[in-house]
């Protein structure tokens, strides 16, 4: 359990820093732009316009990604909870929120940032991601990601090297199966690297510590998890960016 706690926490911290590193100016600018767009959207609503602003779209995507991040953080946290679960439901609720309260929001923020960054980078590089762009593939990707976490939490490995190698292979397989883009790989590597560095720093400063550190201060499989998480969230973000203009419509057709 603490493993995941930390990992969630690290990830969130990482992406916070990431967002600062990557695009501090852009971020400020986009914040201002967001505010502007909010104002304009309000105004346009006042004037009865039906045209949605693109930034509102961005916010909506961010919200969806945030929710996904929070949800995944909670669930993966639970996945790592050890077996000795008591029978009383109130304690289950306690384990559900056993981590610090800020972990899920941070994970959500991280997911939102990474998920928005992917399509952004795609459009900047001018190579839109066309490989398997459909929701079924995204779902598959999420399932594989959860499976990787599952494996890291529940399987008994002979030693840490084996565990790390297996997870690394799985993560690469995830990327190859669902992404196959250079930008995705680069961003995933970047996420993993930054997240691991920040985790190291945090542990070094004594904010947290790992039970069985085998890679300086942290577990060696941590980068793999970060990498696959980044790829997964990026996948979701790209899909959202693709469909979000018609997202509203989707939910109409889906149930008709």
């Amino acid at each position, binding site marked *: 359990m603490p493993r995941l706690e930390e990992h969630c926490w690290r990830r969130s911290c990482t992406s916070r820093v990431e967002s600062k590193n990557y695009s501090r100016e852009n971020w400020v600018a986009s914040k201002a732009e967001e505010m502007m767009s909010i104002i304009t959207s309000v105004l346009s609503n006042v004037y009865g316009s039906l045209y949605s602003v693109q930034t509102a779209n961005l916010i909506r995507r961010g919200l969806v990604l945030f929710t996904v991040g929070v949800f995944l953080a909670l669930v993966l946290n639970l*996945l790592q909870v050890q077996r000795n679960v008591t029978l009383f439901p109130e304690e*289950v609720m306690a384990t559900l929120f056993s981590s610090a309260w800020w972990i899920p929001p941070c994970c959500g923020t991280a997911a939102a940032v990474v998920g928005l960054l992917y399509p952004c980078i795609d459009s900047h590089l001018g190579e839109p991601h066309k490989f398997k762009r459909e929701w079924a593939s995204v779902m*598959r990707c999420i399932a*594989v990601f*959860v499976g990787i976490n599952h494996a890291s939490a529940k399987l008994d490995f002979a030693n840490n090297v084996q565990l790390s190698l297996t997870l690394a292979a799985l993560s690469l397989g995830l990327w190859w199966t669902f992404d196959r883009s250079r930008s995705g790989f680069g961003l995933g590597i970047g996420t993993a690297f930054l997240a691991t560095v920040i985790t190291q720093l945090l542990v070094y400063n004594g904010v947290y510590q790992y039970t069985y550190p085998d890679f300086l201060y942290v577990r060696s499989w941590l980068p793999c998890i970060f990498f696959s998480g980044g790829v997964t969230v990026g996948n979701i973000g790209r899909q959202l960016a693709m469909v979000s203009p018609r997202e509203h*419509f989707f939910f109409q057709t889906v149930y008709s």
Partner: protein
Amino acid sequence: MTVRERLREKISAAFYRHGLLCASYPVPIILFTSASILACCYPLLRLPLPGTGPVEFTTRVRDYTVPSHEPQGDLGERPDWYRGPPVAYIQQVLVKAAVSPWDSTLVPVDVFRSPLGRVFSLLEEIRNHVHNDGSGVRSLEALCLQVTDLLPGLRRMQTVLPEHGCLLVSPGNYWQNQRELFDSDPDLLKTVHQHEPKGLHTTATLRDLLFGVPVKHTGVSLYSRKRVVTYTITMVLGSYDARFLSSLRARLRQLHPSVNCSLREDQMVHVHFKEEIGMAELIPLVTTYIILFAYIYFSTRKIDMVKSKWGLALAAVVTVLSSLLMSVGLCTLFGLTPTLNGGEIFPYLVVVIGLENVLVLTKSVVSTPVDLEVKLRIAQGLSNESWSIMKNMATELCIILIGYFTLVPAIQEFCLFAVVGLVSDFFLQMFFFTTVLSIDIRRMELADLNRRLPAEAGMPLPKPGPLRPREAPPPPRPSPHTITLQTPAFRNLRLPKRLRVVYFLARTRLAQRFIMVGTVIWIGILAYTDPAGLRTYLAAQVSEQSPLGEGGAGGLPPHLGVAPGFPGPGGDPASTLSVLPAPAEPTPLPENQSQGHHGAPRDVPLQTQAPPLVPQISWGAEDEEGWRKLSFRHWPSLFSYYNITLAKRYISILPVIPVTLHLSPREAIETRHPQDTRHPPPPSLKTNDLPADLTLYKVAALGLAAGVLLVLLLFCLYRVLCSRNYGQNGVAHGRRRRGDLPCDDYGYSPPISEISPLLLRGHSMDIECLASDGMLLASCCLAGQIRVWDAQTGDCLTIIPKHGLRRSSSSGCWEQRDGWDAMGVAEPENLGGGTEPGGGVFDEDEGYPLRRRTTPRPALFENQPDLTPLIDTNFDSQPPSHLLLTPPRDGFDFGGLVERAYLEHEPPSPGLTASYPSSSPLSGPPPQRRRSLGYIQPPVPQGQGTPDWESAVWAMELRGNLIAAGRSSGKLELWDAVEGSLRCSNEDGVSGITALAFLNNRIVAARLDGSLDFFTVDINKPLGLLQYRGPPGRSNMPPSPCYSSEDVISCQLTRSVQCAHQKPITVLRAAAGRVVTGSQDHTVRVYRLEDSCCLFTLQGHSGGITAIYIDQTMVLASGGQDGAICLWDVLTGSRVSHVYGHRGDVTSLVCTTSCVISSGLDDLICIWDRSTGIKLYSIQQEVGCGASLGVISESLLVTGGQGCVSFWDLNFGDLLQTVYLGQSSDGQGVRQLVVLNNAAIVCDFGSELSLVYVPSVLEKLD
């Protein structure tokens, strides 16, 4: 040829043959596949059912030895968990105590006070029992399970449960096993109750733990009828010592003999507990399943263009699931026992195996040409995808093989399952799914046969009857002003958000479905965990009926099986008991009665109403294994208090030691507490039963109250949300006034808009051709009359031929003055009625039957001649192709018939003469007029040649102020739009001009015989071309060249492509210097406009081309009769994408920068992504409309319907507004729709034109 290519070809050929095989013998193959699935799943029967219920195994006590850890081969029925010592041995001492004989002086508390009091002496006896034989001295202390500490969370149980030492529980624990505390306790029941948890609990309660029998059986109650107290002393032993236990048993039996006891003592039961699944583990599991279902949902949603989406989706899921089952079955068959938690890895297995291949197969098969045979379609689809399927499969196998080398046992096992699953999935795809697909496609073909046949024949139905059978009864329309969209999903006009949410809930019946699913799951859980003892009850019923019934749950044969369930405290064991006859009953033993029983026959006290004076203590088979009636969480929870988990381990339950206690009334009185007598005497017998079931009543009452509250709440919610009273407005809904605003079913009317159509009246017959250059608007009706309108104001500028001049001498220019306000409704309707068959016969513009008047004339025009029998004459006999090639333009001369009909149906309607005061030839039937007009020379015959009034105008184009009109006689005429004079004409061609394109100074004419003529318009005064007409309007339309009237305009045939197409050219479009033609011969050709050179011949359709779109950005889209839409690259001539979207012809195609919009004969409007060719969504329209499309701006689509035009938001697919063109919208479909540059649209509406401005877009453009 490389090896790879050869391999590829071979695979493709093999798949082709396989597809033929599958489609040829569907039924035998499906049978074979099902048989093989069943065969592969057969080994699964030997696997234990998954579940969390405990499993038990019975052995004999006598030769019991602790099983060894090593598996010892096959030991018969010995389960594999029966290895090693158990966690603990449970030895229960079952005490039944009663005060006998019962004295009337006794108070109710006496029933249980003194019997409970005896527990302390018994405890002492057990604790102090020492067995001494040769090998040494053994006591309970040495044998029992030593516990150390309670879990920290259980402080409140600290006083009750033993905290260290032997785990020995009994009711005495309530009083810390101290007699003094017991004696000084004023209210025993309160002490017992204060430890009970509040609320409903399904798990074992403390009372169950300490008493060891279900609450109802203890008899510790003031209202006990039997007056027998039952409880157990439970010893948990760490090790087994047969001699000590038998000596203890003998000792207790000796002290407290139970003479009538015939309990079996030779069997011990080992109970194995499965892993407990807590909430914390359930949540990730549920999440993975949710992801799995989302995956399946999103995958199967892509199945399209098949007869039964649901059926195929089901087949796909069945394919994957049964391949998994097969894989597990095969692995089991070859000796591998699954050790992984099946429920956990199952979602991952499904995701790994995936549904992709199935979808790819479906898509590939569906996109084969529809006109092929089913067999061939399947075979082609299979072979198209064969290479990618094989490649994918090989890749996946490789990946999984890599996983196999991780050398982690769990991953290896997973990979093994996945490999076998993949292979069996491939097998099933090839045999099962392909066959199902072929059946489905065949069904679709059969179903479409009726629909498609007329459409494919390309044959105009001679009678104005329905095109498709399903149209035969015209859809009932509530009122002519309601547009009936078929799917309610698209009926949402701009509703308020909250209403949308509510409608969404209502539409999808979400709540209902949730409740349904919840109920099903709940029932499933109930049946699975069986808390109500249903299975025990059933078993009891069965055993009662069977002659071999040896009674209840105890009679289960000692083999491996799911435990028959432990009835929980909430269960109904009483009923079980009442149906259970005492097993000893058939052979009543004399000992089967307690002491002091005065010879009363075996009168079962349960059946007697009066309380027996002497409480009976009877031992039955149900006492043998009393623990079965406890909750199955009983033992796990007891052990979990001491942090010992029973998951995946087992305990051994030893046969109970029966102890019977008889206490004398005197003893009972002695042990009485002073306060005991304050209890009221036992209430009357009637109420005896009630308290036991009081909880039930309480629950029922609470549930009822909650239900009522919920109903009230919902009612309030309903009142708040729906302020309208539907009941009162129901009548108004049914029959709305004419001219009312459209209103959807929810009673919501859109805000009254300012969009009102401007009707341009003047044509006497249905409008055939419509052309516009933004400023001017030219229309041509069936009568051959061309009118030119100002597109901004709607004024009629010119009428060609100029018989209007003639008429104006008598009545002036009456049409354009009072045309749309004063004129009666009767006139256009009359003429419409008269010319109705003409409109319904042939589509002159495109040469094949797109437009049909499908709605019969309403009864409104009873006084009009019914012309239908007159028309249905000579078209039936003509073969379709012949008709297409030589359209019977002249054969359509029904003038005589009409005339005759009119003569027969004298008098004509008065409106006719009122509208035509001049009594010109117009008042007669149109063809007659046409003929008469033919002899009138045009007043100003300026140009060379004479206008041809005999033949009809089939195509018309307008550029600048020149109107190019192509006639059925093959003549091309150029008219001055402003002056109405014929500028030139060209009679080079003989065959009728079916389509015209007018671009710059070139005119392209497509003729009926498939030839294509390029004309050049030369103006002698070259400056005239440079004159631009006036300042540009408020719209930013490109200025049109203007030809002044002085210029001599000549039109020369520059090039004639004789055999541009093999069959008639149906579509001709020109843009961006290219001319694109589409023909019945399935091809599209691209010509360069300058030198009329054929650049490409685009092949790809399997039907005649019906629609083409090309714009300045060189995007070319074509739609055909096969329902396919192709996107082409005009520069290279390559096909960008090819999609099937319609069943039946594509009638219209429009592109925006991001999407392609198509409409088809199936009344469907599809919106496609332009770059990827993915269908974004589709709109199902009312039957018989949707043939015309227009795009006003990037997000505003306009479609023509029956007497109305509808505006759609392209981004969301929402219907924004429907504009009704006139009062008489009966059956007048909008067939042509032209979007003008100034954000207005013009559409034909019978004999009228309708000019609709779209205000919002106007603002935006400004």
